[in-house]
């Protein structure tokens, strides 16, 4: 990726983080591939998450606790932490970069208007959820999400994703990933409440916040602090492990390249 594009994306990342603070009521016009009306949830709230990457040690406690809380099948994740080893080419210095990934509960979620049966919808508090009793498992939303935040749950055969643990929020609890984060890197809260921790931190770090893939115009509501703008899009990295498949396409193991 060249420098110009990188800096452009970086600016876009910052701009989008800013734009998210402006209420976007104008999106409600009906039309093909436009957002259907939001329903359910508390209209006085807008949940968002701020991830302070400076505090993340890549322990995957969030991955595990989410997995247990939400009973995701093995190998399928609502949240996970990508880890990269970054080497400075001149000094040879090594550093590890952690990037927790989850649903961005976008202000303009591309997964919602594509759903042919409105099984996936955005609540008025901004949380994007799936009604698994209605979902037909067409997987259109899985393809429409640029963040790979969705998957077809092997057990229920319906779309599955992070819900910010809406069931826990309702009960006054924190989401499993936030609760278990050892470094306190994940901060969730109501961004409409000016006194909430997330609102305070967003005011304080407004210029440093970035979102993932801002150029997709999804207006993500998961904000990263301490982010390197080269990681806001698909990182130009080499995979350390390649899957080795048998002739039937079944995974046999991994081949390490480094």
């Amino acid at each position: 990726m060249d420098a110009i594009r990188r800096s452009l994306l970086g600016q876009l990342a910052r701009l989008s983080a800013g734009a998210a603070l402006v209420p976007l009521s104008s999106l409600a016009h009906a039309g093909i591939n436009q957002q259907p009306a939001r329903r359910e949830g508390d209209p006085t709230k807008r949940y968002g998450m701020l991830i302070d990457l400076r505090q993340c040690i890549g322990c995957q406690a969030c991955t595990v606790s989410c997995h247990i809380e939400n009973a995701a099948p093995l190998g399928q994740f609502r949240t996970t932490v990508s880890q990269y080893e970054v080497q400075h080419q001149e000094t040879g210095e090594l550093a590890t970069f952690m990037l927790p990934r989850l649903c961005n509960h976008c202000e303009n979620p591309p997964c919602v208007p594509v759903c042919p049966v409105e099984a996936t919808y955005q609540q008025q508090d901004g949380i994007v959820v799936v009604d698994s009793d209605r979902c037909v498992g067409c997987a259109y939303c899985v393809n429409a999400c640029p963040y790979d935040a969705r998957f077809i749950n092997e057990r229920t055969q319906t779309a599955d994703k992070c819900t910010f643990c809406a069931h826990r929020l309702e009960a006054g609890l924190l989401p499993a990933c936030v609760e278990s984060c050892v470094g306190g890197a994940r901060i969730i809260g109501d961004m409409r409440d000016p006194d909430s921790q997330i609102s305070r931190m967003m005011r304080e770090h407004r210029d440093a916040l970035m979102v993932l893939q801002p150029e997709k115009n999804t207006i993500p509501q998961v904000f990263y602090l301490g982010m390197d703008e080269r990681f806001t899009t698909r990182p130009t990295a080499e995979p350390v492990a390649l899957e080795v498949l048998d002739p039937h396409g079944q995974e046999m193991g991994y081949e390490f390249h480094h």
Partner: protein
Amino acid sequence: MNSTIELLAPRYDIAWYPWAVQYFFMIAISYASLWLAAPALVFGKKAWLPTARLALIASVSTALVAPVALLADLHQPLRFWHFYAYANTHSWMSIGSVVLPLYLLSVLGLAWLAWRPALQEQRNAPGLSGLLAKWLSFGNGATPKALVAVVGLAALVISSSIMLYTGAELAIVKARPLWNTVWLPPMLVATGFIAAAGLVLVLNRVSGLGSQAAIRQMLYVLLAACAAAGLIATSWFLDGVNAQVGSVAAALESVRHSPSWRSTALWGGITGIALFAAVIVLLTRSPQRQPTLFAWAWLLGLVAIHMGWMFRWVVLMDVQHVARNSAGFHHYGIPAGSSGILGIVGTFGLWLAAILLIELFMPWRQAQQGGTSLDAQASSDAIAATNDSLNTKQGAPNHG
């Protein structure tokens, strides 16, 4: 500058299975062959009647099988009724769920009208085909030509909606840059016509109809469709070649970093150009040599079908393996079960069954733009009398 190694990332599976390829392939053949049947059945061009008869069975048989493949790609197929109970007009897929049954009905309606005169004639045939003809011909009345034309026109209009929705469904997905281009829907249509013309050529051979006129017409359709596909591909490329992001940039990146994408691009390009060149060669030979050469046109038909199928495989399956958030490429082996090879083979098997049932019970060889059973009789006599058929020279089997 830094170098980066991805230590840990989840594995992302594909979400749409080969069933989707089968659906897009079948429905494209169906709508394109409907248009190939239109000159004779809708606009009354007698010279296109042999083509129309072949194209009509191609259109009907694929229209019957396509929705089955689509249903199978749902992870909850028994919930298909949710499409109608909870329709979401914001979704192209939901629009498709309304258009598709209408399309199927209009194609079946057109086929019934076109086959009815011959069905009326077949009512006294022994066995099951006579019985079916009695049930299906609905009385002795003539089939008005205008009715066939109107139903045909309606089918053409609805088929345009199918072209639009199947293309738009993919083209609006920003998350997959390779799909997210306005050039994808027209390319799907162009390759659909390539595959449909190919199928008509093959059916012309295996049915024993062996119409020279149909071969010539299909070669011209192939010529036009290949030229259109080439133009669309070139426009797509020139449109995006200087862009840093978007469909072409994503394609170039894939080709640059993946040997399998390189070979796919090369194979697609070479096959397309070779097909185009072969069609030109066949059409420019002297009239004396053409009948001998045209006898081999069905081989070009197979290549054309391959083009149409492969384009959909690359677009729907291969694009899903381009990683969006992790390094490298996702590796995909086609599973053996119903979400893989069994599904592909099964769909083709179902299609074969559909076309054999039509062959067994429907007098598709006498399809015409309405009229009475007497017209059907006259038209089949006329066909037998003309020298149009390759059979007189080839002695290929004729089940007619």
